[in-house]
């Protein structure tokens, strides 16, 4: 079976620094995959390579069977891969409705229509309403994104990626910068949204081990630009090398203690 997303022997270097050293990764339909690793392990570089933002120095990235290495995020988004960023990334002056409409128009291939009346586009309106309702933003549609509380900004960031109705979504720390109380809410919201919107696979970079072990089908542990382990959460917990090198924390009674790796 063809993988939805597959990276083969990907290397990425910045001058003398080797950020990714022969990383191979496969994501199949129906999977929730988490990428973990200490700071500097190459997690964000890997996401940037997978989402076309950064071309790899060598190696291959295939999405739905097509080579997509370095094609750029815009084309990849149109092919069905969306991403959200580590830091909250929004359009500060645009309303919530307009932010979601940007993604909906892109999905509908209507972004460059110069003379269509946006306010009368029923398809876009319906798409905006659907995503806003899924993410609890329906009563804030007319608010400027910059005026939202931090948790809602993060939700809007992720919601706009979901509004593309992608096959695969890659999220770089979807719960970073939000309160501990909001983290579970955000994760439950986006898993529910993924089911409703037909997202076939989720890949996330995450430091919060409760989130990682609570939601993942598979965990890929990176260390110094290499894949140290690629296994189920239970197998990762049982792997002493991963616990020592990547998690860096003790485990008790089979459960990883909360905290950042």
């Amino acid at each position, binding site marked *: 079976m063809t993988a939805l997303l597959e990276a083969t022997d990907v290397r990425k270097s910045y001058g003398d620094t080797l950020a990714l050293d022969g990383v191979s990764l496969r994501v199949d339909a129906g999977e929730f995959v988490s990428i973990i690793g200490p700071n500097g392990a190459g997690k964000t570089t890997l996401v940037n390579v997978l989402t076309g933002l950064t071309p790899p120095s060598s190696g291959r990235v295939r999405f739905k069977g097509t080579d997509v290495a370095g094609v750029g995020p815009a084309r990849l988004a149109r092919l069905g891969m969306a991403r959200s960023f580590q830091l909250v990334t929004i359009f500060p002056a645009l309303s919530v409705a*307009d932010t979601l409409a940007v*993604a909906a128009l892109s999905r509908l291939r209507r972004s460059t229509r110069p003379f269509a009346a946006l306010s009368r586009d029923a398809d876009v309106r319906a798409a905006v309403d659907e995503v806003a309702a899924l993410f609890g933003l329906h009563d804030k549609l007319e608010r400027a994104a910059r005026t939202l509380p931090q948790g809602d900004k993060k939700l809007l960031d992720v919601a706009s990626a979901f509004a593309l109705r992608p096959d695969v979504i890659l999220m770089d720390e979807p719960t970073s910068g939000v309160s501990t109380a909001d983290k579970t809410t955000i994760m439950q919201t986006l898993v529910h949204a993924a089911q409703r919107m037909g997202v076939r696979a989720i890949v996330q970079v995450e430091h919060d081990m409760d989130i990682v072990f609570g939601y993942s089908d598979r965990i890929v542990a990176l260390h110094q630009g290499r894949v140290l382990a690629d296994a189920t959460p239970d197998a990762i917990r049982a792997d002493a090398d991963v616990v020592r090198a990547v998690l860096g924390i003790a485990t008790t009674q089979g459960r990883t203690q909360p905290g950042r790796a």
Partner: protein
Amino acid sequence: MIVRALGLIAGAALVLLPLAGVPYTTTLLLPAFGYAVALLGLNLLFGSTGLLSFGHALFIALGGYTAAALTGRFGVRSLELVLLAAALVAALVAVPIGLLCVRYVKIYFGMLTLAFGMLFYSFLYKFYALTGGDEGMRVLRPMLLGRPLEHLDTVAYLTGPFYYYALGVLVVAALVMRRLVGSPFGLSLRSIRENAAKAESLGIGVRRCRLAAFVVAAVFGAIGGVLLVVPTGLADPLLAYWTHSGNLVFMLLLGGFDHFLGPVLGALVFILLQDSVMSLTSYWRFVFGAILAVIVIFFPRGLMGLLDARRAAAS
């Protein structure tokens, strides 16, 4: 409500002005119409897309010289054809320049547009045989809607048929721009202005959209340029000079770039203010500099922002 009411009053005043028997004021407003059309385009680039051009006068000059070449050398006297040709020439020139410029943003974009503007100025100034050098090229009086109007003297032509023609072009340009700004393309541009990386991650072709905005702005600039040179009867190199581009930016800031009609207001107020201040003192540039400083520091949203603030306070 206040903005709409003031807009209606201003619109009615503009329509009735030629009937009031004040030809000086009437002809004074003709360049404002030309500038307003050009600024509507420039504001798509700056207000919507976030790219500030310091060389937009290039396209005004291109429109002006197209009008001069067609009316003076090729005997094309139909203003509709001249406008169409100016728009086409501007689009053709804007594509290669835009392809280079939109690779950059912020000050780098501004400096590159300034450089192209000055290149064109030098071309107009030095290629005497082709452009008339510092003397420029004459623009002959064009026909309006197929009517020669030769029985009218220049003042009657300019304060009558041409005034309403130019006002009509401005209204059409404003309606087209309003449609563009409210379209999916307009939203894509605003998303790019707000966060280009985010827009790209949502599938927006950032460079392509920026290039399209650049070309549209150039077309509006050239149409405005045609309207500017008909009343003076001359296209000269100063149309492309960098201070002319600076005046355009001034007008944009004066009127307010975050409101759709800000550029139109900016053009009208600039022309009327320039005439008033020039009649009072020869140091009018000094006065304008001070006004610009006050606007940027205290009223960054321009005159339209002031009206909007009053509306917000009233509601």
